Each structure stands twice: as C-alpha cells, then as structure tokens.
C-alpha cells in the first residue's frame, strides 16, 4: 500500500476528547478493515487509503485526477494521560476535529483543541474540519446542530454531523478536508512563483512571510 505510485501523500490527524469516536470514524472511512499500523514507541496508530482527487476549476470544469495516498493518524489514547506532544501536531497537514454530540463537555473542549492547533500545527491557521459524531444517538443528543454550526462558522471551518456507527457523513467530512488541503497547496504553489521581494513590497509582515515559507515547505 505504501508503494510510490501516487501523486501526493497527505497526512491527516484525528483529534478530540477521549471517547468521541476518533478511531471508529477512521475505521469506518477505511472500510472497517483492521489495517491499522500501530507504532508503539511514538503512540501513533495510522490507517491508509488511496483516493483520487479532482479539482473543480472556477469554470466548473473538472481537472485531471490526482492520486492521493491518505494517511489517517490516530492517537494511542495518550491524551488521557496528558496533552499531546507538540511534535504530534506539527507533522499533520489537516485536522479532523471531533466531538461527541451526546457529550457537551467534548463540545466545550473544541475551543481548547483549536487553540492548541493554532499554537502547535505547522501554521497558525491550519485546515480543520469539525465533526459532531454519534449523530445516530439522536435521543441522547446534548449539543444542538445550530450551536455547533455557529462555532464552526466563528472559526471559518466546515461542520459535519457524522456517525461512525452508520457511516453518515464520514466520507464527505474527510473529502472536505482533502479539498481544503489541495486548494491550500495550489495556492502555495502559485505563491512560490512570486519572487520574494514582490511579496514584501506588497506590505506583508515578516511573520506572514515566515508562515508562507512553512506552508510551501509542507506541500512537498
């Protein structure tokens, strides 16, 4: 599965409180196959999936398909013992942030997870998709859809109500994240054509410059 026969290798990290269903969501997305590779020494569990990404141009035309090798990273549950190491965040390109629709505290903690991401991810506005999981347990719902949507809008990130139990919205959520990443990569590739001086002349601060450099570094 890890042969070099793809155009991009993209790493996503699933985050959120213990018990929100991170592992179940990733498992559902990778067709329930138990193909996870657990790296004991670093506490990372990952699953892989190949997808084809077709960018839709501004004119609605669908471009050539790009072969994506998706690596979906999961924690080994070390967040139960302490906060995750910063190295854990740094290596991922996109984040699937989950909470449990039947557990209000897991929703309240979404803000903390986002601020941790802003601090430790490869840049301060990484691509995130918010998922309210366990939508199948409607009778136990503790978080209203409007509340969750309002929070996602505040951060400018997409929101999906998912169910790892029946598969609802799992693929759309992950595809939305992939779409954000691919668009970001296109943007950063475009920007790499702009000579450094031109960007500075446009009034970018040195911090902006630095974050652009880091983005470009991530896309290879």
């Amino acid at each position: 599965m890890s042969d070099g026969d793809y155009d991009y290798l993209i790493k996503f990290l699933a985050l959120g409180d213990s018990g929100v269903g991170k592992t179940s969501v990733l498992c559902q997305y990778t067709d329930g196959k138990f193909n996870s590779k657990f790296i004991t020494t670093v506490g990372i569990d990952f699953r892989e999936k190949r997808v084809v990404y077709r960018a839709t141009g501004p004119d609605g035309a669908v471009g050539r398909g790009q072969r994506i090798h998706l690596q979906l990273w999961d924690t080994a549950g070390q967040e139960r013992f302490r906060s995750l190491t910063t190295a854990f965040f740094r290596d991922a390109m996109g984040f699937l942030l989950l909470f449990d629709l039947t557990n209000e505290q897991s929703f309240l903690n979404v803000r903390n997870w986002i601020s941790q991401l802003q601090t430790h991810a490869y840049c301060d506005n990484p691509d995130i998709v918010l998922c309210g999981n366990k939508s199948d347990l409607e009778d136990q719902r503790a978080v209203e859809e409007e509340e969750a949507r309002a929070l996602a809008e505040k951060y400018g990130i997409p929101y999906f109500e998912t169910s790892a139990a029946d598969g609802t919205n799992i693929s759309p959520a992950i595809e939305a994240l992939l779409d954000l990443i691919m668009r970001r990569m296109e943007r950063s590739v475009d920007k790499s054509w702009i000579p450094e001086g031109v960007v500075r002349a446009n009034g970018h601060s040195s911090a902006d410059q630095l974050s652009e450099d880091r983005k470009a570094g991530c896309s290879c």
Partner: protein
Amino acid sequence: MGDKPLWEQIGSSFIQHYYQLFDNDRTQLGAIYIDASCLTWEGQQFQGKAAIVEKLSSLPFQKIQHSITAQDHQPTPDSCIISMVVGQLKADEDPIMGFHQMFLLKNINDAWVCTNDMFRLALHNFG
C-alpha cells in the same frame, strides 16, 4: 523470597499494592501518600495527598490495567527506598502503551509512604 534484601521485599510489595489499587479503585491511593508527597505526572507537578488523589482519580478512563515488565529497588543513605518500574498499560480499549514510573518510599511512624512519584508514558517524539 526470604533471602532477598529487605528493601527489595518492601519495594516489590509496595509496587504490587500500588498497581492493584490503581487498577481496581484509584481513589483509594490517598492511603500511600502524605501531605508532603510530590507527584510528577507526564511533566505536570502535584503536591500533597489531596492534589495527587484528585489528579489520579480524574484521569479520563474507566478501566486501566498495568503489567509490570521489570522493577528495581535500592536503599538510600537516609534509609528510604527508591524504586523504578518499567511496564505496559492498557486504558479502556486503547492500544497498549509502555510507561516508566519511579517512587521514593519513606518509613514514617512504622508505615511506608510514598514521598515522591514520577510517571511517564514511554512515548518518543518524532518528526
């Protein structure tokens, strides 16, 4: 067992007792700490029986199992016992992870208490 040094016997009985309490009802762990005890849990510091028990009780898992791979004990010049444990643990349905833990035991009024406790998961940075 009889020909083992005393500190080995005390150290290993403590270890057995500690993890038995931890795995069955960790709210009972207060019995082994005193108000001067220090816990460093994954780099976070806690001092005093109450703060330590509060931390250990509030860890977010329902069940946990420890399995001890190895333990070492030494007497210290001031008649304490220092113990190091290497083991594996499993919290709820998560994958098994390695851990290290170290204890300093002191005899106060004929009872052994833990004055220092340091815990780390055996996970390593990468990337």
